[in-house]
């Protein structure tokens, strides 16, 4: 056997040792752990998401209560998570209309909460052919209203466009206008951010009050 063969055999052994090290795969174990942690974050996020919709359902006998409670609950969640170094950002649009009569004007009250951690330099809301343009600082609430008049029950779209120093967003909220009925519609854009990543969701809830 030539002497160089020992070197070649050593190289083969080194490759085998490296292969064994990789197959132990601490990385995979760590990845599994990260997956578990992420699953836990997701559970916490789902808890907040379901409670946000529950706030509105629990306050159904008071439309002003619904809006105030939802905004207060949002602050509660934000403060609670902040103590755990978790950032909770949200953008909420809540609207309410009284019992609709055919071809009769009705006022739709709209409340917008900016809790995204940044100022909305430009906020445009378009509903039923009418637009309103605003600016909304972080942590502030905008209250505005629109007039609607419909002869038949119809789904109306509310378009919301805003831009911040970081991004521009367009949101579309479908509002069912139902004659003989009063409804509360809430649009949520919620984001849960920690060192492990971000969980976010956008959803709408519709409550028939009458």
């Amino acid at each position, binding site marked *: 056997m030539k002497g160089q063969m020992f070197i070649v055999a050593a190289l083969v*052994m080194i490759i085998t040792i490296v292969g064994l090290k990789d197959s*132990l795969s601490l990385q995979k174990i760590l990845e599994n752990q990260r997956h*578990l942690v992420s699953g836990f974050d997701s559970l916490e996020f789902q*808890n*907040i998401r379901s409670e946000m919709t529950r706030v509105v359902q*629990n306050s159904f006998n008071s439309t002003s209560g619904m809006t105030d409670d939802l905004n207060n609950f949002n602050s*509660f969640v934000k403060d609670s998570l902040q103590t755990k170094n978790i950032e909770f950002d949200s953008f909420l649009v809540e609207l309410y209309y009284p019992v609709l009569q055919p071809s009769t004007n009705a006022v739709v009250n709209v409340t917008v909460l900016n809790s995204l951690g940044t100022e909305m330099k430009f906020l445009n809301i378009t509903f039923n052919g009418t637009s309103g343009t605003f600016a909304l600082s972080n942590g502030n609430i905008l209250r505005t209203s629109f007039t609607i008049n419909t002869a038949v029950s119809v789904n109306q779209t509310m378009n919301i466009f805003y831009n911040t120093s970081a991004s521009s967003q367009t949101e579309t909220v479908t509002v069912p206008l139902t004659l003989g009925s009063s409804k509360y519609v809430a649009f949520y854009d919620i984001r849960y951010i920690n060192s492990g990543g971000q969980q976010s969701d956008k959803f709408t809830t519709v409550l028939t009050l009458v």
Partner: protein
Amino acid sequence: MKGVTKTLEVVIAVLMVLISYVLLYSAPIIPPDFQSINLQLQAFNSLQTLDANNELRQAALQNDTSTISNKLAGILSGNVNYLVSICTSACAAPVFNSTSIFSVSYIISGDVGNFNPRQVIVYMWS
């Protein structure tokens, strides 16, 4: 002379293998901590189950930590120490002797007609 070269090559080969082994395995492998995350998942799921069975919300609204503790006793692993705390704003963490403490918090917004947000926190240590 040929024998000396051959011996030198054998020594080099052995050294290569040894150095590689030492370099690859000298750093201690610290296994990740699965116990805490598993317990956190277990505690959170327990709170969620209690809530789904209407056994959490009212107790939390009445600041009744002992009822929640008793209910958790039947669900959580027997070898885990835990403490239930309920708070309405930023919660002050209790002081423990153990250095290995972890917690889960479950948020509730109140109940029908009663907006009263609270955090139910379960601290666990071994």
